[in-house]
């Protein structure tokens, strides 16, 4: 299990910049609708 956790530790630093871009884009798109719409049936 420690080996598996080490895998995650190793990868985070390498890709943090690209992941940040994805995270910001997804959040901005997700929050375009207000909370009542986000909880509507289509979601």
């Amino acid at each position: 299990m420690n080996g598996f956790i080490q895998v995650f530790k190793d990868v985070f630093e390498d890709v943090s910049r690209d992941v940040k871009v994805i995270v910001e884009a997804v959040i901005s798109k997700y929050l375009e609708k207000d909370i009542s719409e986000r909880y509507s049936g289509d979601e």
Partner: protein
Amino acid sequence: MFRYKFRKSSIQKILDELYRGVVSAEGIVSESIRRAEGIGRELNYFLHVDHDLTYSRIDKLSRNICEGVFKPLTCIPVAVKDNIDHKPFVTRAGTPYLNINPKMNARIIDVLEDMGAVSIGRTNMHELAMGATNINPHFGPSRNPLDPSRITGGSSGGSAGSVAVGITPIALGTDTGGSVRIPAAFCGVVGFKPTINRIPVSGVLPVSNTLDHVGILAGNVEDIIITLNTLINGFIDSTYSMLENIRSRRIRLAVIKEIVNVSTDSVKESFSKALDIVRGLNWEVDEVSFPDFNMVSKIRAPIMLGEAAANLFDIYVRYGDRMGSDVKYLFKIGLSIPASIYVMACKVRRRWITYFKDLFSRYDVIATPTIPIEPPKISEVENIATRALLIKNTELFNVIGTPTITLPAPKLSIGLPGYIQLTTSWNNDELLLATSLIYEELYSP
């Protein structure tokens, strides 16, 4: 054999010749294997060409033919992508490190073999189906049949090449972001992915449960319909019934302007000429908008990469050091995506499905260029921006799961075939293929 007279079908032609005794079962398959080991090897389309199993199948099929038993794909050679399980071959998914001994065949292999098809080998692909160039760091790139200095595109590049140079009339591929349609387009053939899950993905090494499709590549639309008919009962009848229906009415076709706008001038010109062809039929062609188009890659990334990193985690842990740098990097991103972001991306995907449901209430078909750029030179695709452009127009239709096809279009300025991508609403695969038949009647290279 078939109720319909197919005009372009290579399958029909082979079956006719077999039935009339012009060719033998062994002759058909020997020629296919000879070409796979000749031009197929030269252009790097096959990772393994099979002799033993193929010829034992031919013995059995020849006995059936002697007894008058003909099936819809009797002796039709098929090329199979290396990530689709087919006993007794190992599934390696374009890697030198995987050696999966499948316990059973993929469902599509069972069906095609039951219908008489003969798989002649396993095709070269982008490593683990996680890329669109088909530049495989372990086995080398597959080369474009029309200009070997250029890529075939991928990840089903070997399958597309096999069809393009006439090794097999049909080939199997998989499509998670455009992996059937991109190489089909670059190689000048037809590439089809059905509505999500309409062809079962069981027995395919998974990348993304949400986005994976099995697809078919062929030299013409008729061969795709004939192949689908073996999987979906009555598919030929329902498609030709749809064809009669749409001949008598005006097809409403939507062009998504944001997708056209990102294309090079040469791609735009080819696409515009393809639209002129259907305008000649009095189809209604409207420009529509999908304002979120530039967000598609960002929303798809957490879904595809997150699911791939989970599905293939043990492969990454064991073999990450042997992976190509591009694939390894995608795994790292997938492992770093927060679960909350994955869930948000899935919810945005649901919104887009609703958006397109509304669009399909007003239009029968959506048309776009399949790829915004010309096939790059093999030496040019190290550039990450170029790699991202390859899937830019195709990945949307994996995210929403609609049936989608690429067809050849008038030539690009570099002299290679252009490409048009058509899509219809979910489970309207028959409408898509009927529309494609009409287009193909008017234009084929």
